[in-house]
């Protein structure tokens, strides 16, 4: 069984987000970039399926600038077998990403796609569902447990108020939630090995997909600032302040 894992290069989750003064976006110059945390969980899950003998090959694919190669190498370090970088300096919207990934799926014919439920930059939570729709495949989003059995993925999903388990026939798209697993740390030998694994670079044009944006970013602003309030002396004063504020 072959698994395709799309991965995205994003601002590292521990880095403070700074909005550019001209309101054109978030400042990504000279800051640490990493693999989207949900995608890291997706790669880890694919690697565990390979270690269990369920999967035979894992292909990591990223769409992004030349530096997204590092993101693919991270996936190869965790244990993916080879990588594809679709190089583009344009910010590609989820629908166009789904269309590009569909073209990759047609070329690679994976049995399963595991990907993050959302990227922590755009927070759209859309690409996996869109890709499944374009492929006319079933989907299981927000996965906290995945069992592959008899050509079906039994996926426990994090839903409002609890958990839901769905059975989705392969091929399908699974999107990962936080509880699915804890990605392993990169070991030095694996980092060395990853650098020797095949990594192919493609262009958007190779796939003949229209990636023209549908959305125009008018501006990106900082949310209303919260300023520090007051220090209260004790619990009684706190309760009285909260009552005055009308929240108790």
């Amino acid at each position, binding site marked *: 069984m072959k698994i395709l894992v799309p991965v995205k290069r994003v601002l590292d989750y521990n880095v403070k987000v700074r909005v550019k003064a001209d309101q054109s976006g978030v400042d990504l110059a000279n800051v640490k970039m990493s693999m989207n945390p949900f995608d890291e969980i997706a790669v880890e899950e694919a690697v565990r399926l390979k270690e269990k003998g369920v999967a035979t090959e894992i292909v990591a694919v990223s769409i992004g600038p030349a530096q997204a190669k590092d993101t693919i190498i991270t996936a190869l370090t965790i244990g993916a077998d080879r990588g594809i970088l679709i190089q583009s300096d344009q910010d590609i919207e989820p629908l166009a990403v789904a269309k590009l990934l569909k073209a990759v799926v047609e070329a690679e014919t994976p049995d399963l796609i595991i990907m993050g439920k959302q990227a922590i930059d755009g927070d759209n939570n859309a690409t996996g569902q869109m890709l499944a729709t374009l492929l006319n495949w079933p989907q299981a989003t927000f996965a906290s447990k995945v069992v592959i059995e008899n050509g079906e993925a039994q996926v426990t999903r994090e839903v409002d108020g609890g958990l839901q388990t769905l059975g989705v026939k392969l091929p399908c798209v699974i999107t990962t939630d936080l509880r699915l697993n804890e990605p392993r740390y990169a070991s030095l030998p694996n980092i060395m090995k990853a650098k020797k694994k095949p990594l192919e670079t493609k262009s958007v044009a190779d796939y003949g997909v229209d990636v023209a944006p549908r959305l125009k970013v008018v501006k990106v602003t900082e949310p209303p600032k919260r300023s520090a309030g007051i220090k209260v002396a*004790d619990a009684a004063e706190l309760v009285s302040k909260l009552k005055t504020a009308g929240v108790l």
Partner: protein
Amino acid sequence: MAALVIADHDGAHLRDTTLKTIAAAQKLSGEIDLLVTGEGVAAVAAAASKVAGVRKVLTAESPELKAEIAEDIAAVVAQIAGGYEAIAFPATSSGKNAAPRVAALLDVSLLSDVMEVVDAHTFVRPIYAGNALETVQTSDAKIVMTVRTTAFAPVAAEGGSASVEAVAVPAAFPGARFISEEKVVSDRPELGSAKVVVSGGRALGSKEEFDAVLNPLAEKLGAAVGASRAAVDAGYAPNDYQVGQTGKVVAPQLYIAIGISGAIQHLAGMKDSKVIVAINKDPEAPIFGVADYGLVGDYKSIVPELMTALA
């Protein structure tokens, strides 16, 4: 043209997320139809028909729709989408699951987590876990959006008298089946929608201490319990308690952070709360930078005092 709102309900009652999503959709159209999907939804449809400003209530029923299978919800919505210029889902787990499918079926973008409708084509939505707000203008002919319901005031639940009609349900999507569900039965509200959240951090030191300190306080306040990533990573609280950029983003009326230093990661998940209280023994903790009311001291003595003061 009209707007279609997909109702959020528990099988018996409409949730107020539905009323808030209607409020968002009303900024796009004066004619709102409400789609109720599920099975045995007569009571919900009756309640829906009374909601102020609703033109028509549509019902779609099947076992798959009851199980909230996204493929089937999207198929129903796409089938009737031609009559609407905008389609709005509340940004619940079910809405987030199905809305992108509708957008893909219609070949339009999804506007996720809309927190403000500026005009018919312009929307404000949070990016980077709410650390930045993006104003986007769409060139798509149809709007498909999920609505961050905490950003909108609900429309009145009474005052309308809409008609109710059933819509045809397409054949079930092959390859997706419902196996089971485990809904948490708790007297406490859900973390994502609670009016009060009590959260604990690494300072609590153990799972036993975390439960012993937070549970009684949450009980007293009718609050949901949350945790910082550090507390979750240390095993003091389960992962679904995590408030933060990679966990849940909450915006309750009152957020009480106990023994949480306030890493960027955590602040991203709770800074839209109306009132924030921080209890921490380190007066320099970053959490105090966003707290409306700070109490410097040991939670071990402060929390019992708080319990007494609340009694």
